[in-house]
């Protein structure tokens, strides 16, 4: 029997994963407008430009088909620059990156790595992020890429700037360069103690340096990176001063609202605007099927929308009740199960065989800040403030929608009220811009919670069929894994198995679907790690022991063992109806293991996660406290998808588009969370926003089985509690 290659391998995987459907969707609206040009320059001082590594360039090109083009137009950003750093004549260090802060705390971690390499205090450094007129092109803040790709670029820029400052001091003072040191934001001569700050050195200069490589400080020598530096803009958050997109105010600004269709794919058959037209200060805007209003405030805008009488032509559409059958039935490449295959031989020879099907529901990101935008037209140029993870992608969407060059569009992204993969698109930006164009004034548009729950996109639902073969001694011999619709991320098994067949099958999607924190790694880990637990129980083996028996990957073994050790795996459970579960995995360069303790209430079957211990390893740690915060948050968010969150729909309508009917984790759901970080200073840092979410759901499911003997194979597992027999 020959070893079968899985259908998706890491090297073959495209830079943009298939489940990022939202990037390939056609624009909702297309309007027309005129063209003008725009240029922007930086001031004097020292500028260091970072060239993009080839890998990034390829990724960006791959995205062109998705609408996020990097034509550049008249934009200041050269095409092959990933970031830049400017030391002004006042000595202030400003770093320009197209990345977006959405709560993952990269504004702080990127500041730290620059401070580290520049030998300057954190307070000297300002990050300018995600402004398409002044920051270099960036494909988007997703895929846990900021730390492994943007962070090293900025480190190199800062290291090169440090060297350039030494050159300047040596020239200006006419001294031996080797006698100079940079420390705490100053260059000092080690002999004469002559000293100058960065501003004194860059005054009157207009230096531009381009770097491709630089010597970087190894992690075990870090002084600022590697420390728990507090969130750099924390004070503006706790005082309410930070302006999110929805907080931006412009002179003469009006408030907009859009009339939503009665259902998905509905078309407008008639519209009566008479009543709304008579309302003071209200303007109704219609452009094809786009209908919106502007008003002096949001309350009047809401009333005006309510006053519109619209008839929509709707169509019959699948409902959540038939979701999983629908996905299996509409698979585009289901293969031919009857055909002879080596994997079938492997199963027929297996000492034990287990088959199971797992499902995951559609879920919503439900970022607490819904989509929001402020749009302003001035001399044919459009400026939009909006919360998005893809400022340049949204710039492209706006240029497309209005038929204008990207050079005429500026997208500014204030630090945003979270995204979790849910804000890759610019719907609110396009809508606000259309309304602003119609009324000739700036317009603010903030989606309601119901709109966010309905007209954004969802994490794909999926069906996962797993078949496994195992010998009596607990050695995996065959593994077949088919994921329908949810996606290919994290689909590979880290366990050693001689015969495997692993496939992702695209299907028709009844809802608009797209990226979500961790993509399908959550679904694939849920299926795999639940199935591994089922196998262990079938064999009467300890679930941890069974995993380790089939696992060579040292990094994954390390997190499993560390989590088990901290948790007290194997110890006696504290009470009846309590259970322990373990799960682990790796994705995007991070390794995670979670041990969970649950308590099941009888007779209600309500599940309470009492305790969760997560071990995470993502190479060298840049900010331990912020990393812990990410792991805690991912654990908390993962509890929602594990136990309660599911989007319900029928005939093109979301039937539970409210927090009252879509149960996100709240205070009462918080377990005791313990995070163990394994700091591998010998390995480059990987991103951490996503992977810590993948192990909590199977750990909880496995703990529920341990507690009450009920195996739950569908996410969410217990929206109404566990059914106990």
């Amino acid at each position, binding site marked *: 029997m020959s070893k079968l290659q899985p259908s998706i391998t890491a090297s073959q995987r495209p830079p943009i994963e298939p489940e990022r459907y939202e990037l390939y969707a056609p624009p909702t609206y297309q309007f027309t407008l005129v063209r003008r040009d725009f240029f922007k320059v930086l001031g004097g001082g020292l500028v260091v430009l970072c060239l993009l590594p080839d890998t990034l360039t390829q990724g960006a090109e791959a995205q062109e088909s998705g609408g996020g083009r990097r034509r550049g137009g008249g934009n200041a950003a050269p095409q092959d620059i990933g970031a830049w750093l400017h030391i002004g004549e006042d000595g202030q260090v400003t770093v320009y990156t197209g990345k977006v802060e959405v709560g993952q705390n990269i504004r702080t971690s990127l500041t730290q790595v620059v401070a580290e390499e520049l030998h300057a205090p954190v307070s000297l450094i300002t990050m300018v992020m995600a402004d398409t007129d002044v920051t270099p092109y960036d494909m988007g803040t997703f895929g846990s890429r900021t730390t492994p790709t943007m962070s090293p670029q900025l480190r190199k820029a800062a290291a090169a700037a440090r060297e350039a400052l030494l050159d300047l001091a040596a020239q200006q003072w006419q001294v031996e360069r080797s006698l100079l040191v940079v420390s705490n934001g100053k260059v000092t001569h080690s002999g004469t103690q002559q000293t100058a700050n960065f501003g004194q050195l860059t005054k009157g200069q207009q230096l531009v340096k381009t770097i491709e490589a630089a010597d970087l400080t190894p992690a075990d020598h870090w002084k600022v990176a590697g420390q728990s530096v*507090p969130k750099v803009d924390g004070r503006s958050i*706790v005082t309410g001063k930070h302006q999110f997109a929805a907080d931006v105010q412009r002179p003469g600004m009006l408030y907009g609202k859009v009339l939503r269709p009665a259902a998905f794919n509905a078309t407008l058959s008639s519209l009566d605007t008479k009543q709304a037209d008579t309302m003071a200060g209200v303007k109704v805007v219609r452009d094809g099927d786009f209908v919106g209003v502007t008003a002096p405030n949001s309350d009047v805008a809401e009333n005006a929308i309510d006053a519109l009488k619209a008839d929509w032509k709707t169509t019959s559409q699948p409902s959540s009740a038939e979701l999983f059958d629908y996905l299996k039935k509409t698979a585009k490449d289901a293969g031919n199960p009857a055909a002879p295959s080596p994997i079938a031989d492997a199963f027929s020879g297996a000492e034990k065989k287990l088959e199971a099907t797992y499902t995951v529901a559609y879920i919503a990101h439900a970022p607490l800040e819904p989509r929001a935008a402020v749009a302003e037209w001035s001399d044919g140029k459009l400026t939009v403030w909006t919360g998005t993870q893809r400022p340049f992608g949204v710039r492209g969407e706006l240029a497309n929608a209005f038929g204008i060059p990207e050079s005429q569009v500026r997208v500014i992204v204030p630090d945003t009220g979270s995204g979790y993969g849910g804000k890759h698109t610019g719907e609110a930006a396009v809508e606000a811009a259309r309304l602003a164009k119609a009324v000739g004034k700036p317009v603010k548009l903030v989606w309601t*919670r119901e709109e966010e729950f309905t007209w954004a996109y969802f994490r794909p639902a999926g069906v996962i069929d797993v078949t496994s073969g195992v010998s009596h001694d607990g050695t995996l011999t065959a593994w077949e894994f088919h994921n329908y619709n949810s996606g290919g991320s994290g689909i590979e098994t880290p366990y050693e198995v001689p015969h495997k067949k692993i496939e992702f099958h695209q299907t028709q999607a009844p809802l608009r679907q797209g990226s979500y924190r961790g993509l399908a790694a959550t679904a694939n880990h849920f299926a795999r790690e639940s199935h591994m637990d089922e196998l262990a129980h079938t064999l009467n083996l300890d679930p941890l022991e069974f995993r380790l028996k089939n696992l060579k990957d040292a990094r994954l073994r390390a997190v499993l063992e560390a989590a088990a050790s901290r948790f007290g795996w194997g110890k006696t459970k504290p009470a009846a109806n309590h259970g322990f579960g373990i799960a682990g995995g790796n994705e995007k360069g991070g390794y995670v293991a979670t041990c969970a303790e649950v308590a099941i209430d009888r007779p209600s079957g309500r599940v309470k996660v009492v305790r969760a211990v997560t071990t995470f390893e993502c190479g060298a740690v840049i900010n331990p406290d912020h990393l812990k915060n990410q792991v805690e948050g991912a654990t908390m968010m993962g509890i929602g998808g594990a136990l309660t969150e599911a989007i319900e729909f029928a005939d093109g309508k979301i039937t539970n588009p409210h*927090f*009252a009917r879509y149960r996100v984790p709240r*205070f009462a759901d918080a377990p005791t969370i313990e995070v163990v970080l394994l700091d591998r200073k010998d390995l480059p840092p990987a991103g951490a926003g996503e992977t810590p979410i993948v192990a909590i759901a199977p750990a909880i499911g496995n703990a529920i089985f341990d507690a009450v003997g009920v195996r739950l194979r569908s996410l969410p597992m217990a929206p109404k509690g566990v059914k106990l027999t």
Partner: protein
Amino acid sequence: MSTIKQLHINGEKRTVAADSERSLLHVLREDLGMTGSKYGCGEGQCGACTVLINGQQTRSCITAVGDVAGKQITTIEGLEHNGHLHPLQEAFLETGAMQCGYCTAGMIMSGVALLNKNNNPTQQDIVTSMQGNVCRCGTYTRIMAAVQQAGKQMQKGVK
């Protein structure tokens, strides 16, 4: 529909001209430029818009402005005095009890309402009092730690 002409916010009298049926949240944000209070759901289900009305935590998104005329309204903007933060604001910074920060203003206002009544809350007290506040980033355990830490400061007389 009557018009509300004055509101008492953060110890000051503020002039407005707002229909009494409009939401307090929109009047604060749109008429007065006080954008610290956030819109999260418009249904009183997430707590991002929380303000204090005569000291009670209140969802400003479902509160008609006409119902609060003449009452004392406290918003997140009213907690800092001459650069001096409220102990709960300090505790949020010290415990790193935020990620994106969008829920933070509402969390702090709900927490302040609790601490003003009980400066030694148990975890269960916090859960009971703040179950209506959503942190989608999932920083609940840190927020609970921040509320308890601030309570300890307030017990010592720190304001």
